[in-house]
């Protein structure tokens, strides 16, 4: 297991280098001359050339990348053009907010996705199953930004159950319940589509396992149906289910990005959005890198979990 982890970490290094290079490149290729941005449109060519030299922009791309990487690894992401603060200082609280939203959304996705999947598999072919399948299909295609607004309309504006935005109340008692209250709508928005997809796939996985011979044998032993699904089928479908959930990570992250914008949830996604609007390049760079890093680590964790559940790599 440890060996597997080390191997995967080793394989990650080139990928992370590639990722950082890509992020670096994206900003380098961004239209607009940095020197004009910093010095203003009336600056002379000489001044721009001098600045360029000072900033090291006349060097070959790879050298610039190496320098940049050196800074990044030392925790220096530069300074935000908009706020003149160190970018890295902006990241930490944002990361926490995104992790909270992401964690809650993941929990919702797993709980509802698996529960609905198991229930519909148990009643496969019946009315409940068919209706649920249609509902699940529709939910799986809902745009998170639209769903967020719909939920705000219904539950914030009409019913006044939840606040419309932010992570904490302005009249800040700011405690856990306050955050949870603000968390509900964004988390549901983020989790809806992935949960629907998980439900459909879990249902298929369990139905497939239920058709296998050892399930028939268990039935012939008189094992009650509920035990068959929850113990015999689930145990064998578990690795597949974990894989299914892992595949939804991309959607979860995407949904979280939109949710943070719609609900002004102060996470990395919203930071990215505001920095794009403000063309704050260092912050764009840093937030993209941070989100990508989290994504890579989450995927690694899922791989490890999969490995732990099924070391032989063979399951029904």
């Amino acid at each position, binding site marked *: 297991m440890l060996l597997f982890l080390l191997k995967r970490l080793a394989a990650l290094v080139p990928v992370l280098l590639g990722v950082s290079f890509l992020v670096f490149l994206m900003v380098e290729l961004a239209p607009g001359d940095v020197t004009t941005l910093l010095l203003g449109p009336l600056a002379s060519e000489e001044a721009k050339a001098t600045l360029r030299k000072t900033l090291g922009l006349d060097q070959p791309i790879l050298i610039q990348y190496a320098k940049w990487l050196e800074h990044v690894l030392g925790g220096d992401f530069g300074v935000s053009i908009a706020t003149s603060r160190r970018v890295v200082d902006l990241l930490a609280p944002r990361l926490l907010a995104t992790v909270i939203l992401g964690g809650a959304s993941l929990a919702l996705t797993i709980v509802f996705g698996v529960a609905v999947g198991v229930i519909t598999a148990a009643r496969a072919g019946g009315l409940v199953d068919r209706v649920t399948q249609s509902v699940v299909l529709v939910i799986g295609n809902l745009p998170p930004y*639209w769903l967020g607004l719909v939920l705000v309309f219904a539950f914030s504006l009409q019913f006044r159950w939840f606040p419309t935005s932010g992570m904490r109340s302005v009249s800040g008692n700011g405690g856990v319940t306050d955050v949870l209250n603000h968390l509900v709508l964004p988390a549901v928005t983020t989790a809806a589509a992935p949960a629907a997809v998980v439900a459909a796939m879990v249902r298929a996985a369990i139905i497939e396992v239920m058709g296998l011979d050892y399930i028939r044998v268990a039935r012939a032993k008189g094992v009650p149906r509920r035990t068959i699904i929850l113990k015999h089928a689930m145990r064998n479908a578990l690795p597949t289910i974990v894989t299914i959930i892992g595949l939804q*990570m991309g959607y979860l992250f995407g949904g979280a990005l939109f949710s943070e914008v719609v609900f002004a949830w102060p996470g990395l996604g919203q930071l990215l959005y505001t920095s794009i609007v403000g063309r704050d390049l260092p912050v764009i760079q840093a937030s993209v890198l941070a989100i990508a890093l989290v994504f890579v680590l989450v995927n690694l964790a899922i791989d490890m979990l999969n490995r732990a559940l099924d070391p032989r790599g063979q399951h029904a």
Partner: protein
Amino acid sequence: MPDPVRHPSHLLGYASKAWRNLGPLVAAAFLALVVTLAILAPWLPIADPLDADPSKRIAAIGTHDLWLGGDNQGRDILARLIWGARISLAIAVAPTLVATLVSLFLGIAAGYHGRWLDHIIMRTLDVFFAFPLVLLAIAIAGILQPGVLTEIVAITVVLVPYVTRVARTSAGQVASQTYIEAARASGASVGALLLRYVLPNAAPPVLVYATTLCGLMIVVGSGLSFLGLGVQPPAADWGAMVADGGVVLRKAAHATLLPGLMIVLAALAFSTLGEALREALDPRSNRRRSS
């Protein structure tokens, strides 16, 4: 022999079989309708989508001769939906088409040639897979100047890794078939081999995947527009309309609900078509004959 009582699942079986056949037709008809309206937009007897009338701001559905009401600037929502369809569909379909072409090329190269070419291509793509799709799209679109072309470029770039992966798996499977070896042995040139044998056989799963992706890209593309990275105001596009409507959510929810509904329906339509295509092309369809 007891009476063959209609088991409830029997009827449901018929209903679901009917939908299985009818669903794709409905989806195709819907898309055809939307595309036709979008293409014919300049000649349709509808209002000017850019005509902002302050007296009609957030008009309710049916008032002031506005079939679907007015948006936050008093523009005709129906007109904007139809004109918006041109862009919303374009930013989903065009990138998918381009990405599919590029991916078929890359995927077949990787899957058929194998070895180092496969390795290089797939390792490079791994870097792209390290990003969530939406993040990369937003980042690319955010870096470039906002506009429809930006959106198309961003989505195309983001799609290529995913479609290439499917194309490469498909091409790899085809390459290991005996008829390929036979053709090779009979002296066919590599180009002819790829074009006449590998491409037609490797393409179907890729096309099915691409069709399903169109649905997803309508959502993602409109999402980019929602964030303001695409069409610039006052041009109409479903995603931008959702964002505009969000401002007046309390008083005029229809301004957001309607364009969003279009996105959902279009996405569902593509998704249904993709499913139907998959079932039609899958020779190993293992549905039991009995319902």
